[in-house]
């Protein structure tokens, strides 16, 4: 089952790792990940993953949850950092601190560290001639 065996650790050590993993997988059944099992199963099935073991789907769900949580945490830090640097007086900042909004800007920066490059539109215009000089605009 385990093709890589570490010559450094003793047999006892390996059994410990075995036990730790099996214990963890068992504990996964107690932990309910936020990402529902059915959703994860759907996407795993789509990708060709086949396993009768639900603990593995739970493992994937938890791994995804951890990933999203980390990205969200990084984005939150970016957001807070941006708020801290805005030169405003204390009264305004108090009000602004209460609204932590996930923006594309923060998300892009956070995801960049994870190797995901997201590009988004800066703004959308009404028509191709919006903002142009009225004299030159096509009527």
């Amino acid at each position, binding site marked *: *089952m*385990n*093709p*890589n065996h*570490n010559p450094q*650790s003793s047999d006892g050590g*390996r059994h410990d*790792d075995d036990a*730790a*993993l099996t214990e*963890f997988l068992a504990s996964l059944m107690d*932990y*309910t990940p*936020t*990402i*529902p099992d*059915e*959703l994860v199963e*759907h*996407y*795993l099935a*789509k*990708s*060709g*993953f*086949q*396993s*009768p073991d639900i603990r*593995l789907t739970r*493992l*994937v*769900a*938890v*791994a*995804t949850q*951890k*990933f*999203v*949580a980390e990205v*969200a*945490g990084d*984005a*939150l830090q970016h957001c807070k950092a941006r708020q801290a640097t805005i030169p405003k007086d204390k009264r305004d900042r108090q009000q602004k601190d*209460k*609204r*932590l*909004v*996930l*923006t*594309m800007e*923060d*998300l892009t920066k956070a*995801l960049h560290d994870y*190797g995901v490059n997201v590009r*988004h539109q800066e703004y959308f215009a*009404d*028509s191709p001639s*919006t903002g142009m000089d009225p004299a030159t*605009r096509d*009527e």
Partner: protein
Amino acid sequence: MSNGGGKTGRQLEKPSTWKRKSGADDFAQAIAKIAVAQLLEGQGFHSFQQSALEALSDVAVRYATSIGRSAHYYANLSGRTESNAFDVIQGIEDLGYVQGFPGASEVDHCLEDSGVVREIVQYVNEVEPIPFVHPVPRFPIVKDRKLTPSFLQEGKEPPAEHIPAWLPAFPDPQTNTLDPTGDTTGAEPHAANGKFDQEREKNKGDWSMLSSQQQIVSGMFEKPTFTYLDDAKAKKAAVESNPFLAPPLKVGEKEVAPIAPPAPPAKLFNNVASDNPVARNFLDDKSVSVLETFTPAIEAMKSTTYDSGEDQTKHVLNEKPTVRFKIGVRNKFLGRSTGLSPEKEHQKTLPWFAMEDEKDDRKRRAEKILRESLQNPDQFVQL
């Protein structure tokens, strides 16, 4: 939003009125968005931008899919079809190499002892589980297919010796054709749309019970493709090969929903806006007079010339259909069209498109409204 200057001014659509085309994965994407929103809330965000949520949920879905793909790949590499825990751990590791995890650089490390596993264990121990808010059913729902029974199952003998008995049996001779020659196999028209094929399959059994008269009547109301069959055998060949080449139906043969012809006004709207903003104006909170809305369109229509369908438009404008309609929130209107015979022919060749394409349907409704206002410029449409 401010209008652009001059005649080409138009209103922007509100995001709430945008109707995206539904995709196959919409349900799963929606669930993923809810789950990610919950996680964001758990992290401390108070709100989020829609586009940011969609982007993050898309990334999360791809993450899970990627783990699945890698796990499947590693299982296949080891000569297995089913993945086990180590394949999954290797899959997670593969994605973790970008950010890095403790022990990533060790070439020969034990997978059980992997840094990713330790980090996940740490995460599970630290964080309170946030259960998903809604109960999620198992999806996608697999429908039971009623397969056509084979010759063997029906106990019948195949009509010719070159037909093996394990093939599905032929339908009853009186099922679809009203043709005196009684050709059983080739009588069904080839529907351009696969959907109609499936429906036809399901209803094959029921159809054999109906008499030919009943079939015509039911066909008129349910399955537009079958109405072609009530013509003589002279048209059978055309029907068999290509429904678009079939002769047009007479007036009153088929019930059609009252929709305006897909004439040049569609082109105009395409130039002016992306997605039928005229109809959406009615969903605005502020009441906008129809005439104001259509003034640019009317003026443009009067000035520009069209190549195709011009005669049709003129024909339409000359008539005065008695249509009463009411625009509701969902942009539906009830109407009865009378005396629209010239367009009916044109419409009848497009049943598939009319049914499939929501956008076209709305465009036609908007054109109908436009016609109404053109004929009664003083009369405002009741919203």
